[in-house]
């Protein structure tokens, strides 16, 4: 994908079908896009044909790390300070399975959040990735094409043809 500049054209859409229509047409012409929606819609994801999110790798790695950490902590600490009670085993795996389980969940969840932050580029401090309009968290959809000012007219035509309510330009 070509490098995303901040300058570009933002189309504001009131309907889902006009948004996906614009996405398909702009993608056909090879423009890199940022799409805003008030709620996750599979129609938008399908029209963008984006690859699967990498969050799942973080979840898996975090969960495995948690299991290993839980087992290591309980086993090592029990061997380091052996509490001998009636000749019972020191490394008691049925009892430790609870510690292992809890740390699996804990680290799995925390690394999922870390994965979300890294892949979703959150928290975003400073200027947003592309021009934004507050109505996108209300009821409107937005399609921003990252293009230089020489392609503004071509993109604007596609946006209005697809049914955009309003087209905004960002020269920056």
């Amino acid at each position, binding site marked *: 994908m070509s490098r995303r500049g901040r300058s570009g054209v933002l189309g504001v859409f*009131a*309907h*889902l*079908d*006009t948004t996906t229509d614009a996405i398909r047409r702009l993608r056909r012409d090879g423009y890199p*896009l*940022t*799409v*805003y*929606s*008030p*709620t*996750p*819609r*599979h*129609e*938008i*994801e399908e029209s963008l044909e984006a690859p699967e*999110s990498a*969050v*799942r790798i973080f*979840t898996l790695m975090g969960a495995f790390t948690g299991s290993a950490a839980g087992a290591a*902590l309980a086993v090592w*600490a*029990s061997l*380091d300070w052996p*509490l001998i009670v009636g000749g019972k085993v020191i490394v008691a795996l049925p*009892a*430790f399975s*609870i*510690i292992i*389980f*809890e*740390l699996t*969940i*804990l680290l*799995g*969840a*925390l690394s*999922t*959040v870390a*994965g*979300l932050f890294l*892949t*979703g*580029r*959150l*928290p*975003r*401090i400073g200027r*947003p*990735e592309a021009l*934004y309009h*507050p*109505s*996108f*968290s*209300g*009821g409107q959809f937005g399609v921003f094409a990252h293009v230089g000012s020489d392609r503004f007219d071509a993109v604007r035509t596609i946006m209005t043809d697809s*049914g955009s309510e309003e087209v905004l330009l960002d020269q920056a």
Partner: protein
Amino acid sequence: MKPKLRPQRTEAQEAKMATEIRSVFHPEVRNYEQVNRDAMRLISRPGKGYLALLGLSIAMVGMAAIAFGYQVFYGIGWAGLTNPSGWGTFITTFVFWVGIGHAGTLISAILFLFRAPWRQAIYRLAEAMTVFAVLTAALFPIIHIGRPWFFYWLLPLPSERGLWPNFRSPLIWDVFAVTTYLTVSTVFFYIGLIPDIAAARDSTKEPWRKKVFTVLALGWRGSDREWKNFTRAYLFLAALATPLVLSVHSVVSWDFAVSIVPGWHTTIFAPYFVAGAILSGIALVVSIAVPVRKVFRLEAYLTDLHFDRMAKLLMLTSLIVGFAYGTEYFMAWYSAELFERDVFFDRVFGQYWWGGWSMITFNALVPQLLWIPKIRRNLNAFFVISILVNIGMWYERFVIIVPSLAHSYEPWRFLNYHMSYSEAAILIGSFGWFFMWMLLFLRFLPALSIAEIKEILPPPFKHHPVEALVEDQEERVVETLPTGYEEFERR
């Protein structure tokens, strides 16, 4: 295959068909913007009633703080705890609040995995309740240990004496279970809130609120990259939270079941406690949702259908709990164990008969009234039942904990436990603490999940094939169609 937005109809039917499509779960919600407006209505200037309730809650917390101060100063003997009843009101209340904290994750994670669309409107409220209930519960072991400044002894921290906690002890399992649950449910709650805080940021007019929301929203814009990773992360968090929620109360139950105290030493405790936890949690969700719906006029979101589904969950868990009560008595009788039989006889005919009968009546019998549709659909009746279940569930924990200790093996050790004034003050204060957070939450953060309710609303379409078809027709019938539901069904 792409999901279709409406059910199949014949051409003739289509021709006469509707112009407006609404979700069956929220037939009165017209469009996306309305959700924002209604959710933001909750975050408005508080009235006198709200401030009075908040003041009352804070006063209750203050009362508990004074009682706790006395207990720290004079020692744990200030509470009614003594031999043989080393566990009393504090542990009862701890188990009660951990149990309350189960409904939120049930609704937010388990129903999410089951794709139950009625969860969307209610889950934020339930999830906030979970976080605050576990926050309340976590206070009680610290209050109960008497010397709270030594709490860190429970954590696996390196010390110069080379001591480590005993990982074979159920109490250490409990520390791990409750702290993990508090962390994961808080994280889950906050991650779910981010898009809605961003929506609040975009629509609020007050400058200081805008600043706070801007920080909390982490720069969320609802871009395709954010949504794609968000939906996956949310799914995995739900998948991790589901076994967690089932494990937490199981681990709490093993605090009891792993010991040999009569009435505690049983294999059914884990499922019995989890079912009881969900019963009490759903009951408190109803106790909070009914007044919230009335005060904030949220009839379009918390519809009768939502309460009907919750009533059914309540009935199911009540039946499980009732079955567990029966099983406990059967096992005590069938085991022919003198001490076991004696403890169970004592629960309903001994010193604590009022607790035993309250628990059986309020948890197993009263919720069965919900089988009658007229009662189930009457919110006032449902509200009263939910309060009774809450009282019954507190008694259940009391009946499990106290009579077993006060009336265990040797008759010369039998001694009845009585709640002291300081314990009563701390018990009342725990409700103040919980409702203080709940009230603050209702006014400062979006209590309706803005983005998730939109997921089950039909999306706005310009060139809808059916709409195009009826454009020339004179007759236009507005009908609600189960679009959101259909989509969920087909996914």
